[in-house]
């Protein structure tokens, strides 16, 4: 028996006892500080410290560190111990630098030197100390320094088994830091053949290494399949006495079996019929053994046996080609569902989630539905209940959806808080996916809000609205149901939101009934108004203006409410503004105009449910698919990638739809859905039906065209596979505020994210820009915002540049863009009569006041498009004042902090030639003139 107790370091024991006897945290800290000061002075002053003393102090430091105190010294002393010729000193030195990793370069060199010496030692124990240290620190430098020696150590015939084992894992660690460390060529085969090693410990370690290598390069290491299968076969068929010490509680080499079964899950089923037959035999044997009576009552025995069994089942599911095995696996898991051991129930539920997605076993899984529902309701352990919910979600299909959704709803009333939000998402997804009757869907979602309103995220209630808007067969029912739900004395705010929105759109469908007449609907909604948050109130105000359109008979009643909230009584500026604008709209606009502005929402484009994206974002990788897999195609490796791509693509499209209602955009416009449309509509009326608002978003995809943003303030500035950058800007006088939205389109987080705005040298002092910092991490599928404030001090030549850098999947990315902050953004359109215009035009006829440019139109001449551009450019388009009706003349004032600069512009399209337009701009400031000419001609017109 190796007794490790005994060689006491008395000073250490006393110190530890002191700490343990401390009555308070303060006393402990005091004692520790005293000790730290003592050790520090010893290390500094006492040059005669011997190895034993150093060892003692280093031990103390380790203990202090474990208690959570920072240790910022002692590294040097520890490094000195590495070269001690006493083993225990060397050992503690290595321990210290492994626990308190410090990458100070002067130390690293010394450490590496000691490691180098120990690696060459003839004593395997010393070699192992060195290998452990490399595996603990595993820095890039170490990979460089030792990248050569360790592979040699691993495959050399002279190396002892103990060292080989460590070398394999050490190499794995270095491989994780720098992938190029693994030599290719003949090494591949030598590494693979470690699977045949005599020593089981070596095989276990080597399997871990090979598993990592295979993940990087499956084709190169394909050879390991047959070796792994035969190794596995030898273990599985071995009796427990064959493997002696590697038998654990009567189970032969359970850890190695698990590792081999995992390794094989990197590949599709073996092509070679012999290998494949052998593998299937192994899997059958493992399943058979599960049915044998246990050889021991100890839990260790059943754990070890079942560890292998679960891994075998994972492999069967992964292969997904053997219906017989799949059904057997399912039955086996079914037995576990009612096992006494909580662990087994947990794992069985987890594995069944995977089985449910195979077309062969989906039905077999469904047989266990009742037990699973019971697990969800009755399990003591929330982890297990959570697994049961996951499984119900995975096994749900058309035939059992109603029952499962109902059971989940019932359970939700008493469910743990920690899993409610996820359950809500799952119920919402299932209800939508399997709804044949959409009235059922509406009922389910409203029930969700009623039962767990706090856990219903925006996406869920956005989605129900999207669906109701898209399906006219359910609109009347929805209106009626929300109306009824709103009559509850206390109803959740989310219910008010959904109710408000739906009644605003479809309230007319139930208005015929006296019990839900327009006035009753309005009173009902307004009775909730005062209990709601500003965001909901804003939404309700939008509903009211829609009511004005739908029900002219209650217009005065509603105008009264707008009046009340358009003044100081509304503390929220947004509400005040909204109320006054709606009030004016209801007063000024004709009925036809109102009807156009407040037309029913157009149908939302069909996309994948945004809720699914949220669920995936919450638990990437762990959410069971509620989708039955197609038969697996035997293309090695590519399946995984393909799936990833697919899910990435899904997330992207889903992201786009998350914002469908636009309600999550900045607080200034909580119900941008309505106001946005309003503005767009007005905009369209104003610019006589230009194809601007929606088409732009689509056109901008995968393209970056800074010129376009000269004439518009909002849209997608840039987009590629990784990121979408949206922009939204507002300008007032000489001030501008640009909000940039960075959306991560991938399924991994973007790291080291930074977005820097740089003012070109020519603009310094003329344009001030300030940008807020952005969070360095953009989570998968998430969007972050950045505010940029600009102040136009004086006429400036160029827009600032925007440099976006980030790391995605380890690859650094850099984007150089131009911030849409050209000088024309500060234009204020100026009305003037033809007389005034041409008087000023003539005054500015000197060469110093005039810039002129002839340019080719990039698009066919289209008066409407030109008008849209010019209006977007920011100047006032002056119609009917130019003697030549083909010409466009504009006037505007650029607001700068120093002064206001007037500017006149005339565009003479040359229709006959269809090749060139003459653009003339007149102004006192040359820079501005040239600038206006350049930017405008750059846009194509």
């Amino acid at each position: 028996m190796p007794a490790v107790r005994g060689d006491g370091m008395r000073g250490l024991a006393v110190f530890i006892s002191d700490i343990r006897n401390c009555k308070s945290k303060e006393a402990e800290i005091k004692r520790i500080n005293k000790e730290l000061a003592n050790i520090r002075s010893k290390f500094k002053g006492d040059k005669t410290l011997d190895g034993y003393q150093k060892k003692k102090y280093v031990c103390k430091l380790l203990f202090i560190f474990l208690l959570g105190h920072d240790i910022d010294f002692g590294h040097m002393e520890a490094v000195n111990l590495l070269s001690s010729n006493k083993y225990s000193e060397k050992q503690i030195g290595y321990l210290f630098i492994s626990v308190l990793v410090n990458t100070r370069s002067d130390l690293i060199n010394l450490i590496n030197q000691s490691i180098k010496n120990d690696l060459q030692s003839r004593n395997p124990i010393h070699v192992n100390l060195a290998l452990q240290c490399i595996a603990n620190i595993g820095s890039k430098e170490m990979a460089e320094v030792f990248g050569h020696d360790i592979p040699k150590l691993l495959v050399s015939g002279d190396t002892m088994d103990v060292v080989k084992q460590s070398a394999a894992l050490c190499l794995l660690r270095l491989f994780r830091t720098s992938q190029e460390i693994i030599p290719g060529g003949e090494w591949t085969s030598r590494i693979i053949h470690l699977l045949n090693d005599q020593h089981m410990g070596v095989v276990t370690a080597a399997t871990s290494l090979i598993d990592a290598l295979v993940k990087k390069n499956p084709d190169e290491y394909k050879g390991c399949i047959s070796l792994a299968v035969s190794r596995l076969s030898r273990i599985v068929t071995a009796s427990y006495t064959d493997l002696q010490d590697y038998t654990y509680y009567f189970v032969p080499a359970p850890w190695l079996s698990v590792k081999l079964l995992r390794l094989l899950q990197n590949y599709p089923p073996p092509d070679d019929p012999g290998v494949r037959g052998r593998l299937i035999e192994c899997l059958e044997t493992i399943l058979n053994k599960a049915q044998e009576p246990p050889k021991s009552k100890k839990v260790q025995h059943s754990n070890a046996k079942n560890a292998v069994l679960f891994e075998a089942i994972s492999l069967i599911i992964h292969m997904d080609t053997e219906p017989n095995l799949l059904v057997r696996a399912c039955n086996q898991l079914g037995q576990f569902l009612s096992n006494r051991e909580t662990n087994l129930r947990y794992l069985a539920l987890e594995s069944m989630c995977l089985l449910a997605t195979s077309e062969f076993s989906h039905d077999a899984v469904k047989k266990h539905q009742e037990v699973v529902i019971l697990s969800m309701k009755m399990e003591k352990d929330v982890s297990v209940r959570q697994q049961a919910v996951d499984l119900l979600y995975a096994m749900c299909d058309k035939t059992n959806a109603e029952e499962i959704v109902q059971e989940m709803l019932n359970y939700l009333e008493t469910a743990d808080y920690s899993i409610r939000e996820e359950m809500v998402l799952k119920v919402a997804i299932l209800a939508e996916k399997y709804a044949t009757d959409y009235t059922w869907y509406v009922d389910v979602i409203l029930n969700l809000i009623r039962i767990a309103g706090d856990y219903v995220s925006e996406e869920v209630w956005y989605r129900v609205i999207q669906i109701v808007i898209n399906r006219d067969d359910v609109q009347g029912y929805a209106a009626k149901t929300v109306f009824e739900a709103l009559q509850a004395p206390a109803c959740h705010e989310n219910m008010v939101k959904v109710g408000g929105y739906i009644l605003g759109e479809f309230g007319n469908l139930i208005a015929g009934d006296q019990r839900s007449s327009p006035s009753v609907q309005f009173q009902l909604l307004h009775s909730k108004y005062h209990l709601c948050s500003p965001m909901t109130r804003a939404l309700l105000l939008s509903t009211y203006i829609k009511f004005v359109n739908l029900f002219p008979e209650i217009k005065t009643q509603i105008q009264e409410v707008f009046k009340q909230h358009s003044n100081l009584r509304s503390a929220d500026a947004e509400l005040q503004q909204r109320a006054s604008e709606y009030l004016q709209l209801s007063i000024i606009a004709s009925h036809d105009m109102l009807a156009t502005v407040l037309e029913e929402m157009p149908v939302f484009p069909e996309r994948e449910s945004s809720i699914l994206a949220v669920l995936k974002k919450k638990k990437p990788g762990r959410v069971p698919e509620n989708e039955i897999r197609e038969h697996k195609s035997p293309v090695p490796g590519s399946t995984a990638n393909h799936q990833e791509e697919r899910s990435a693509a899904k997330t992207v499209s889903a992201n786009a739809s998350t914002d469908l209602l636009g309600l999550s955009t900045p607080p200034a416009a909580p119900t941008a859905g309505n106001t946005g449309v309003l503005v767009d509509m007005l905009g369209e009326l104003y610019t006589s039906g230009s194809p601007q608002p929606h088409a732009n978003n689509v056109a901008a995809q995968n393209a970056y065209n800074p010129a376009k943003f000269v004439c518009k303030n909002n849209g997608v500035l840039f987009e590629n596979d990784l990121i979408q950058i949206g922009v939204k800007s507002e300008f007032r006088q000489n001030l501008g505020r640009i909000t940039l939205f960075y959306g991560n389109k991938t399924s991994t987080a973007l790291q080291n994210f930074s977005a820097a705005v740089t003012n070109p040298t020519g603009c310094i002092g003329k344009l001030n820009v300030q940008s807020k910092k952005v969070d360095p991490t953009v989570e998968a599928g998430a969007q972050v915002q950045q505010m940029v404030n600009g102040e136009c001090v004086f006429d400036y030549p160029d827009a600032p540049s925007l440099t976006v850098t980030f790391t995605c999947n380890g690859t650094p990315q850099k984007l150089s863009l131009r911030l849409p902050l050209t000088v024309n953004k500060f234009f204020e359109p100026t009305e003037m009569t033809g007389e005034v215009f041409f008087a000023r035009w003539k005054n500015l006829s000197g060469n110093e006041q005039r810039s002129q440019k002839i340019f080719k139109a990039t698009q066919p001449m289209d008066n409407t498009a030109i008008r849209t551009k010019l209006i977007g450019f920011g100047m006032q388009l002056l119609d009917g004042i130019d003697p030549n009706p083909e010409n466009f003349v504009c006037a505007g004032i650029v607001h700068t902090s120093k002064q206001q600069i007037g500017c006149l512009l005339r565009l003479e399209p040359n229709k006959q030639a269809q090749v060139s337009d003459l653009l003339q701009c007149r102004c006192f400031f040359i820079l501005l003139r040239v600038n206006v000419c350049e930017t405008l001609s750059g846009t194509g017109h």
Partner: protein
Amino acid sequence: MIKAILVFNNHGKPRLSKFYQYFNEDMQQQIIKETFQLVSKRDDNVCNFLEGGSLIGGSDYKLIYRHYATLYFVFCVDSSESELGILDLIQVFVETLDKCFENVCELDLIFHVDKVHYILNELVMGGMVLETNMSEILTRIEEQNKLEKLEVSFLLSAVFDTSLGELNSG
């Protein structure tokens, strides 16, 4: 991969912490705290696997633990590890400690934290299982002890020599 191995007592006092992925000191302490809070509020007869730790690895992260008398042994792992396999590995670790310390108790871990590290180093390396065969592990520990004893006797003889020398010179 095993991301970290933590041992703490029923009051959350850390007795061993070993991280196989780099975290700074602050983060290490936070992870220990969070893990203790997650694990300690669970009943003894519930399952030994637990999700919900937020500090390491996000969703691909599980805690697998065992509670022995006054101590919790927690292995923080990702999904590439077999839950039951790790559970047995914890058992191997504890049995090895028990053999080495002859009825291990919390005090042994406190006063011999260095030894506990050495034993662990024989089981797990760079976050991967190194050796699971207990008699093999015990042999290796035994060999290390021998080396150490050798140096103690060497030390004693050195002391003896010097005192002899002193005697002679005196």
